[in-house]
Each structure stands twice: as structure tokens, then as C-alpha cells.
């Protein structure tokens, strides 16, 4: 895959079932690795994408028979990943950063995604589903 790529899209449609999350990690590892991301960045992307998929599966409000969509856009210098479900959505305003000193488990996933990726956008609303788009930039070679 050494040919010049300007912009290519890969899309997966995945059942709302937890056993598929590890398969998505394998897929994104292959994509990110072929683009030249280093091991640390690949680990960041794996965790962030898993968090978004876990969110879709747990909070999307869809049945296991329905699918959600993971879209990868590979460009020269960045990888953009969107995870979209077609569930009931939730209010972003209710997503607060976790306060670990109070040992609060909620909201950790989104907080982790925002920490690990370079840019994150969340689109959600009642009955229009949720879409989390995250970008990781390839680091300039020293």
C-alpha cells in the first residue's frame, strides 16, 4: 500500500454486540499501521475507537440485531474515524468529566477519547443517534 493516497474511505457495519469490539481493534491496528503510525499512537487509536464502540453498544439503545457504522478516512497525514449509531442519542450536556477522587465510573470513555485523539466531535440528539468523529494526525518525522 505504498502508492500515493489522497483520500480513501473504509466502512464497516457492525452488530451492537460486545464481542465485535476486539475485531474492530484488529482492523484499526492494520489500517493505522499501514499508514505509518507508531506503536504509541496505534495504542491510543485502539483505545479511543474501542471506547466509542462500547458507547454505541451500551448507550445507543439499539438491539443486538441492529448495526452501527465505523468509517475510516485515510489521508496522507491523518486518520479520521467516525462511529455512528442510529439509536436514541443522549445529551452531551450531561457528559461531564469524571471526578475520580469521588470514584465516579461514569463519563470515563468520552474523557479518554478526548485525551488520546487530536480532535473529537460528538453529534447527538434525541432520536437521531450519536456520531463520534475523531482525528489522529501523523506525527512529522524528526
Amino acid at each position, binding site marked *: 500500500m505504498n502508492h500515493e493516497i489522497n483520500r480513501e474511505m473504509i466502512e464497516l457495519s457492525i452488530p451492537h454486540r*460486545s*464481542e465485535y*469490539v*476486539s475485531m474492530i*481493534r484488529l482492523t484499526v491496528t492494520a489500517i493505522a499501521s499501514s499508514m505509518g503510525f507508531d506503536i*504509541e499512537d496505534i*495504542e*491510543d487509536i*485502539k*483505545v479511543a475507537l*474501542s*471506547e466509542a*464502540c*462500547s458507547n454505541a*453498544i*451500551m448507550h445507543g439503545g439499539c438491539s443486538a440485531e441492529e448495526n452501527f457504522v465505523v468509517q475510516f478516512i485515510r489521508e496522507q497525514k491523518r486518520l479520521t474515524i467516525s462511529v455512528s449509531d442510529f439509536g436514541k442519542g443522549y445529551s452531551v450536556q450531561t457528559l461531564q468529566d*469524571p471526578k*475520580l*477522587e469521588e*470514584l*465516579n*465510573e461514569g463519563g*470515563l*470513555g468520552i*474523557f*479518554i477519547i478526548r*485525551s*488520546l485523539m487530536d480532535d473529537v466531535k460528538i453529534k447527538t440528539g434525541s432520536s437521531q443517534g450519536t456520531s463520534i468523529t475523531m482525528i489522529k494526525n501523523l506525527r512529522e518525522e524528526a
Partner: protein
Amino acid sequence: MALKIQKSFNEEEQLWVLVLEGEVDLHTAGILKKAVNEMLEEKKGSIRIMGDQLEYIDSTGLSVFIGTLKQLQKENLNILVRNLKPSIKKLLNITGLDKILVVEN
């Protein structure tokens, strides 16, 4: 990859040693939670997690740690973690969990 769990009670140090091998994610976090609950039902004690062969964990697994810590702290017990991969240490760092758990080496 699945998750394999080995648990044993170290009488000398009076704590549980939990060896995690594989991946803790949404699919396997329930297995971890069940194992930890069974351990603490059998005997209350701090838990040392051996991370040598822990390849992956995310918030679903960290939430199990946080929930367990809530129980343990009431009895002045704790969770200790040892030999974690750099990527997992990074995750504990950004979530601030490294200040609440005891990170050994």
C-alpha cells in the same frame, strides 16, 4: 483475544494476586468483575494486579477497578498494580487512577 484470569491469595502478604492475561474490554469486563467479587466474598483483602500479560484495557475494565476500590477503601484496603505495559500506564495517568491505585514499579 479473550481474557484469562488467575487468582490466588498470598498468605505471607495477606493479599490477593490477580494475574490478567489478554484483553479487558466491554466483552470481558464482566468476567473480571465476577472474579473480583468472588475473591472478595471468599476473603476481604487488597488486590495486586499482575499486568505482565495484560495486553489491553479500557474504561470498561477501569470501571471495574474503580467499583472495587470503592468497596476496598471502606476497609482501608487497596488495589496494587505491577508490571503494566506503557500504554496501560498512560491510561492510568490520563484518568488520574495512578494517584488512587498503588502503582508498583
